[in-house]
């Protein structure tokens, strides 16, 4: 079965237990404890050694039911896209789709070419410069194989991060949006729940319920797997290459009899 995350940001309290659980289970190095000055977010971004990241948005705009000042917190993670740019662009085959339909980087194959870094429309995967390889969330591949829930979902105290069968999660998510709307939270919407919701990636295996425009959570509004337009590029290249060959031939043959 396809499994994944449904992250309901309306339930997130910003405790960062998911960040800690992820670091601890996967034995990743810390982030150096820098203060960023961006609300309570001192993590800043997803990175090669940071596979969960809680964003803290301080929204100060009048709303229908919520008070005008609102905390919007979201635990961000690799989206394990249905059409994953990193996977499709990986030239070594180090990035694979697992039996759980997650996207996994095999550290013993990756040679650190860095192409996936530029191919990810969400800016998730990155190369660790001192390690030389690309790293990202594994959806706790090791735990899944032992029938355990990923560390972040296990640690989440408010069920903001829910793990399970994607079909069931989608049903649950849609019901939750209805419920929120009935309570007057007009901005509630799903981000990347399926192919209809996000055409470019054909749906995310880690999707979100957000309360405002995706931009304020640092999510791209309409991401697309970069391989989608490649046919156009290859056709343009064929034209360019043909032109170059014609140019070379005509330059030489026209100069043949000059002196």
């Amino acid at each position, binding site marked *: 079965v396809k499994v994944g995350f449904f992250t309901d940001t309306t339930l997130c309290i910003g405790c960062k237990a998911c960040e800690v659980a992820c670091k601890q289970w996967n034995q*990743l190095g810390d982030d150096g404890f820098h203060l960023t000055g961006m609300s309570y977010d001192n993590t800043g971004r997803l990175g090669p050694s940071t596979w969960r990241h809680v964003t803290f948005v301080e929204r100060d705009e009048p709303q229908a039911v919520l008070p005008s000042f609102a905390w919007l917190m979201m635990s961000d993670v690799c989206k394990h896209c249905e059409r994953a740019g990193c996977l499709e662009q990986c030239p070594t085959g180090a990035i694979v789709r697992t039996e759980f339909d997650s996207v996994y980087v095999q550290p013993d194959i990756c040679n650190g070419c860095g192409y996936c870094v530029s191919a990810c429309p969400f800016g998730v995967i990155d190369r660790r410069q001192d390690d030389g390889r690309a790293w990202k969330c594994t959806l706790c591949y090791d735990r899944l194989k032992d029938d355990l829930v990923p560390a972040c979902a296990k640690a989440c105290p408010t069920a903001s991060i829910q793990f399970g069968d994607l079909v069931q999660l989608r049903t649950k998510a849609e019901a939750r949006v209805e419920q929120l709307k009935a309570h007057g939270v007009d901005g509630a919407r799903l981000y990347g729940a399926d192919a209809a919701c996000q055409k470019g990636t054909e749906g995310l295996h880690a999707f979100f319920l957000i309360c405002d425009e995706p931009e304020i959570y640092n999510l791209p509004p309409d991401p697309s797997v970069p391989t989608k337009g490649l046919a156009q590029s290859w056709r343009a290249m064929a034209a360019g290459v043909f032109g170059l060959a014609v140019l070379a031939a005509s330059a030489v043959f026209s100069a043949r009899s000059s002196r």
Partner: protein
Amino acid sequence: MRSNKPRPTDGRNIDPLLGTLAGEGSLQRIRQVDAPPHGEFGSAGKTPGDVDGPSYYGLPVLKEPVWKWYIPAYFYVGGVAGSCAALGAAAAAVDREDFADLARLCDVTAAAGAVVSGGLLIADLGRPGRFINMMRVFRPSSPMNLGTWILTAFGGAATAAAISHYLPMPRWTRGLLIAGAGATGVTLTGYTGVLLAGTAVPIWQGARRELPLLFSASGAAAGGAFLELFSLGKPAEKAVDRFATASKAAELVLTVVFERAVGRVPRVARPLRRGLSGWLFRGSQALTAVSLVLPLLSSRRAVRVTAGVLGTAAALALRFGIIQAGRASARDPHATFEQQRAG
């Protein structure tokens, strides 16, 4: 039992004697605990007077390309090698004594360029020792994987073609090797544009069709400028001059077409107008224009060599400029947002 070893300082805070290092990330080699990446914290990339839409503290959405100077340098070397192979094949095809020098120079340049290209690409890898993993799969969805195969085929063909000039062999064998080098060479020149277009970086993605054309033309211009540095006798020099003039003109036109294509969303084209990338891009246009006009004014040797040097500088500036523009573009969240909102 407590260990007497000092606590590990790699940020994991796990004493290897007390805990098992078996987690997924325990394989990570950590020499230096993370610093803020790209220095972006607190410097939210705002220019006075900008009215930006919503963003997350102005932080980038995308990760900056991690490629070092090796990659734009490879774009240049590969372009020279590939277009020289094409010109060499044409020169060998006319099969005349006064084109023999040109054909040989082209094929030797192509072979040397293929070797240097391979070296540059391997040096850029995070794990250079594993470069061979590029060839454990054939994956048409990945331009980098196809590029590896193209470069490998080109390297083999170009080396064989270069050697064929110095070994006695039947004419058709030599012709076949040289034609093979030419055919793979033109592909090598063009695919690098597809490589960049196949990323999520707004300024590269915004020119899906234009980048491969620009790289083909610019590769030819780089090859032409390189060959202008040599004296090869009258008809061969004439051929080089025509090749160089036409490709430099094409490159100049295509830089304008490229800028217009990415300018469909003005914010995306911003790196071509500002900062280091803007200087490199404009500088390359100016250098190309000068090196295009110079040989038309005079056919003196010093003028040809000057045009060759300026053309080479232009080709390098264009490649470094486009990579630099990609970095700036990935750093700017509004380029990503506005491009996607524009559809």
